[in-house]
Each structure stands twice: as structure tokens, then as C-alpha cells.
């Protein structure tokens, strides 16, 4: 069964090599989709395998898949299939370097898979740094000053942030010297948590959480996020917002499990509550006055990550299960929205919110899913995000974060107002040019049914996920229990 772990790492790597060799053919864009499908299939298989037979370990203990890793791998796979399939550019927009684009995407997926199956915290760090490396050129792919600036900020801030996390990991290794055998194995550190040097563990926990929080995009280390996600090509933004941030949050979850066992929960909890509330505040303030619809989506990512940080800070089975399910629900909705925003940009030509009006009537094929996706991001029932957001807030109240959750609720409402106002203006807002031209002329690049399929799947899935979640209950319970080292 441990061979499955190697398949999840080797097959995407193989597909990356293949898309490099065949980079002249435009169909190589399907190879990253195949890599994503591999991760999804292997992830689901691992969820079942771990549920039946317990955690799997291989590679001299460097790799280990427990229920949490298997869940994360499935989320990465599911969101990536949607983002990459729906994000395949229209024939007219394909550039010559498309094969290299596909190669980097497949490598990016491999790096994320490695991050979630690594047991060694050093290896986890290496994998997360690899995600920055593989996405650097993807962010700057479209060229021009804006994309270059975004790529520069992204790589410098991402690498410096993650260097802080590395310093934390180095100190954690030093803290484990007293246990006899210094180790970076997550399981090993968790089991010997009581014997870690408390002063070093405290510094290590603070630095590691701070570093990975930069990668999650939590305020005040978020300044790269709106630039990178608004400049990158649509499927790349979708992946960064939909899963990369969740993978970085997963790293925080792993570190938190160790520090909680060694020095108690206060330190990480305090940091995550501060960063979470600050992120919600910044996201709400920036979306109220936002003029660019892709930046609006980027700030919505910050809002969701801020909420997830609060959920992780609250801890406990309910909040953590909600956080894990929210990662899937938000990932599906957000990657769809970024892809749709990319299509809107291709049709309208402008990136300002005021450039887009009456989308629902002009382009129902774009307007309807855009409106539904926005509803999912805003947490309307029946979308799964409604239930997970309520669960996180309720769990927070139950675990002594009363005023923090009340403040979060107020900030969520402010975000709601800003986001809803802009999306309504774009989709049903009055048309400045009410003469209805020929519908054919309005739809020069009407997406084929085939390209609409992933959009429908993603929105449909996030609408029914909460009601069809009964098989997920066991899976999520296992994943939360995994943080205790048992599953």
C-alpha cells in the first residue's frame, strides 16, 4: 500500500518530464490535468487504505501518510483537476511556451504532494519552498511590468518568510537534542514532545508559524498575495488560492500539534488569532473599496484563510473538521471563480470592476456561474462554506474565543457587503450601453460545453457536499485524530 505514496510523487513527475519533451504540442496542457487526477485517485485510495489499516510509512521514515495527509492529498487533487481542466486556455490564446507552462504546473503539483506526504519537517519545508520555485515563473508568465513586479515580490517575500520557518525548524531540531536522538520526524517529535527543550521549542514554534503564515498569506505578511493572485494566469491563481495556501496552513497544523504537546497551546493560539482577525480586517477594508475584480478574489482568499486560522486557533474536533472541509469547499469555489474571472478578462479586456456590467444577460454562460460561485464564497446556504463557517464560529465560542469570534462575525459581514456589492454590480448592474447588439458578436469565444463541465461539477459539489457529507464524517474524524499521532 505504501507504493501508492510513491505513485503520487513519481507519476506527476513523469508527466512533467513528458510535457517538457513534448512541449511543442498544445495538448500537453492536458498532462497537468492527468497529474491532478492521479493525486485525486491516489488520495482517495489512501484515505480508504489508512481508514482500514492505519498510517503508512515509507522512504526510511521520511514519508508518512496518515488520515490527515490522505485528506489533504485528495483536496489538492480535486481542486487541481477543476482549476486546470477549466483553466485550459481557449485555442486562440495559446502561446508558444505552453509546454513549459504545463511542465511547471505538473512540478508544482508534485511539490504540493510531497509537502503533504512528508513526515520529516525538513522535507516538508523543502517541498513548500519548491512550490514557490515552481510557481515563480508561472506568476510572471504573462510578462509585462505588473507580472514581473508580482513575481519579484512573491519570490522575495515567499522565500524570506519561509526562511524564517526554516530557522524555526533548525531550532526545533536543536530542541530535540535533549531527547537523546535529535530528529525532525514529525511523529518522533510528537512522541518525545514532553522532553523537548521548552525555551527553544517556544522560539521554534513562533518562528515556524510566522514563516508558514507568510505563505498562507495571513496579515501582516500578506502584501505579495493580492499582487501575485491578480497577475498570475487564471488556473495558477486558482491553485495558489485554492490549495497552496491550504497546504501551508497544513504545515502550521503539524507544527502546532508538536508545540501544543510540548509547551501548551497559548503561544500558537495567540499568534493565529491575531493574524486571523487582522487578515479578516484587511480583507474587509480592501474589498469595500476594491476596483479590480481579480484583486477582489485575492482579498477573498485572505478572508477565508483568516477564518481558517481562527478555526485552527480554536482547535478541537469540531473546529478542525470544519477547517478541513472548508479547505475543500473554498478550494473548489475559489479556483472556479479565478478561472471565470480569467474568462471575463479575455472577453471584456479590462480588469476593473467598472468594465464589467450586466454579465448575467450579456454572457449568461459566464454570469450565472460567477454569481453562484460568489454565493459559495460568501457562505450562502446550501453551499458547504455556510456550514463550515458557522461550525468554526460556534466551535470558537465553545472553546473560549468568544469576543474574537464575535469580532470575526462582524468583519465577515463587512466583507460580505463589499464583495456582494461588487459582484452584483458586475453581474446584474445596469448596463451603461443598453443597446443589445447581436448575441453572436457578444460571444466570440463562447466556452465549449466541455470547458463548462468542471465549473458545473465544482459548483454542484460545493452545493451538495454538506448534505452528502455522511461518508466524510469518518474521514474527517480520522484526519483530526491524526494530529494526535494515532491515525
Amino acid at each position, binding site marked *: 500500500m505504501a507504493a501508492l505514496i510513491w505513485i503520487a510523487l513519481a507519476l506527476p513527475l513523469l508527466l512533467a518530464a513528458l510535457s517538457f519533451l513534448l512541449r511543442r504540442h498544445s495538448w500537453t496542457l492536458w498532462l497537468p490535468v492527468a497529474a491532478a487526477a492521479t493525486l485525486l485517485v491516489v488520495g482517495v485510495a489512501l484515505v480508504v487504505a489508512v481508514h482500514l489499516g492505519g498510517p503508512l510509512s515509507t522512504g526510511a521514515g*521520511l514519508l508518512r501518510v496518515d488520515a490527515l495527509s490522505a485528506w489533504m492529498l485528495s483536496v489538492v487533487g480535486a481542486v487541481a483537476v477543476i482549476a486546470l481542466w477549466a483553466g485550459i486556455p481557449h485555442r486562440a490564446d495559446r502561446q508558444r511556451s505552453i509546454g513549459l507552462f504545463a511542465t511547471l504546473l505538473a512540478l508544482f503539483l508534485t511539490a504540493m504532494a510531497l509537502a503533504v506526504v512528508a513526515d*520529516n519537517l*525538513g*522535507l516538508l*519545508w*523543502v517541498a513548500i*519552498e*519548491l512550490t*514557490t*520555485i515552481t510557481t*515563480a*515563473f508561472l506568476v*510572471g508568465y504573462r510578462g*509585462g*511590468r*505588473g507580472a*514581473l*513586479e*508580482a*513575481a*519579484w*515580490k512573491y*519570490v*522575495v517575500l515567499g*522565500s*524570506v518568510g519561509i*526562511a524564517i520557518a*526554516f*530557522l524555526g525548524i*533548525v*531550532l526545533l*531540531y*536543536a530542541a530535540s*537534542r535533549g531527547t537523546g536522538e*535529535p530528529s*525532525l520526524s514529525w511523529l518522533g517529535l510528537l512522541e518525545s514532545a514532553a522532553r523537548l*527543550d521548552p*525555551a*527553544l521549542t517556544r*522560539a521554534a514554534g513562533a518562528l515556524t508559524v510566522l514563516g508558514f503564515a507568510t505563505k498562507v498569506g495571513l496579515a501582516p505578511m500578506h502584501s505579495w498575495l*493580492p*499582487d501575485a493572485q*491578480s*497577475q498570475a494566469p487564471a488556473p495558477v491563481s486558482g491553485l495558489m488560492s485554492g490549495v497552496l495556501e491550504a497546504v501551508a496552513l497544513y504545515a502550521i497544523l503539524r507544527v502546532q500539534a508538536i508545540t501544543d504537546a510540548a509547551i501548551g497551546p497559548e503561544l500558537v493560539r495567540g499568534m493565529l488569532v491575531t493574524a486571523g482577525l487582522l487578515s479578516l480586517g484587511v480583507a474587509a477594508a*480592501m474589498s469595500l*473599496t*476594491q*476596483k479590480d475584480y481579480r*484583486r477582489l478574489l485575492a482579498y477573498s482568499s485572505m478572508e477565508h484563510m483568516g477564518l481558517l486560522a481562527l478555526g485552527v486557533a480554536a482547535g478541537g474536533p469540531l473546529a478542525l473538521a470544519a477547517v478541513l472541509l472548508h479547505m475543500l469547499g473554498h478550494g473548489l469555489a475559489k479556483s472556479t471563480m479565478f478561472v471565470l474571472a480569467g474568462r471575463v478578462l479575455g472577453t471584456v479586456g479590462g480588469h476593473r470592476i467598472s468594465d464589467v456590467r450586466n454579465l448575467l444577460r450579456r454572457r449568461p454562460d459566464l454570469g450565472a456561474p460567477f454569481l453562484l460561485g460568489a454565493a459559495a464564497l460568501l457562505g450562502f446556504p446550501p453551499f458547504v462554506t455556510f456550514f463550515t463557517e458557522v461550525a468554526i464560529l460556534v466551535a470558537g465560542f465553545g472553546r473560549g474565543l468568544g469576543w474574537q469570534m464575535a469580532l470575526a462575525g462582524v468583519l465577515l459581514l463587512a466583507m460580505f457587503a463589499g464583495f456582494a456589492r461588487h459582484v452584483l454590480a458586475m453581474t446584474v448592474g445596469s448596463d451603461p450601453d443598453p443597446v443589445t447588439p447581436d448575441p453572436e458578436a457578444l460571444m466570440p469565444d463562447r466556452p465549449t460545453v466541455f470547458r463548462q463541465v468542471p465549473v458545473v461539477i465544482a459548483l454542484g459539489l460545493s452545493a451538495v457536499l454538506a448534505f452528502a457529507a455522511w461518508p466524510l464524517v469518518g474521514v474527517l474524524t480520522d484526519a483530526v485524530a491524526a494530529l494526535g499521532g494515532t491515525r
Partner: protein
Amino acid sequence: MSDHLYEQLLATTTGLLLLTAVLQVWGRSVTRAIRLLAIQGLALAGLVLVVGLHGGERQAPPVALLVLLVKAVAMPWAMARSARLIDQTKEAGSLANPAVELIGAAGLTLLAYAISGPLLGGQADPAAQAAPVGFSLVLLGFWQLLIRRSALTQLVAFLLIDNGIATIAFLTSGGLPLTIELGVSLDVLLVVLILGVLVVRMHEEQGHIDITELRELRD
């Protein structure tokens, strides 16, 4: 290796690390900063060898060689190449004047010693006693990142932080396991290459590499 010799070699290598870091903050020449980076890599490799041999670790020579190749040869080479491609040898300017820069650097070095005391106070090992040098390098790197405007100097600062973290790793725990060390070195090397390419592109696109002029994207 006698304890006396060990302590002397430790003092020499860590002293060299701190000296090169301070000189990097002091100077304005990009070429010189890159040369100092190469010397720093050499000192770090020496430190790895000294700590490893004293601890009786058989992996020490290959790890020292890896550090030497990556930090004293490959990275300075990659940076020098970018600098040559855009023909940039002098720093454009700083947000602080030289006196403020140096006073800040001195203050940060003191801070590094102050924070390492409670953190590593319990360890009597002379290597752990030298760990504040690593923290100084990290803080000096952040200081440069804050006050310098040239994209190339930002890159030097990033590598200074990285060298500082490596110094802390070797002084507090004798270094990370070899597989992890390899992965980390590869990652940092790739980041330097990518940033080098971005610097060249930035120069092509706008004719300068002043990062305070990156203001295209705003809310």
C-alpha cells in the same frame, strides 16, 4: 583535535562570518558584496568541517564540500553573472545614511547576543556559545533587506539570512541530516537563480533595478 585548537578554529571561522556580514552592510559596491559572500561561504564550510570533525561525525567532509560548492562557488557565480549581464557594480542607494546603517548593524548584533543568551544559556558547548554569530547574520540580513534599494543587494541580503540560519544549525545541533541539507541547498540555489533571472528581466523592462520604484500594482 585538542579543545584549545577547536575553540580557536571556531573563533576564527565565526569571526570571519561576522566580519564579512558587517562589511557587507558597510559597503556600497555590489561586486565587493558578492566577493564577501564567497568568503562567507568559505568560512561556513570551514565551520562545518571544524564542528563535524570535533564531534567525530563521518559525514562532515562531504557536507563541508557541499557547503563550499553551493555557498562559496555556485551562488556567488550566479549572482556575479546577473550583475555582469546588467552591468551593475555600484549600489543605487540606500534608504538610510551610512552612519545609521552601521549603528543599526551594531545594535542588531548586540540584540543577537541578548536573545541567544536565554535561548541557549543552558548549553556549555563552545559551539553553542558561538551561536549568536548566526543570529547576528540573520538580523543583519533583514536589516539590509529593509534599507537597501537595489534588487541585487536584496539578493545578497537573502543569502546572508540563509548563511546565518545555516550557521545556527551547525552551531546548535551539528547540522541537519544530510538528505535534508541537500534538499535545502538545492532549493536556495534555485531561488537565487530565479531571482537572478528576474533581476535581469527587470533591468530589460525598466532600465533599473530599484525595488522602491516597483509601484505598478496598488490598491
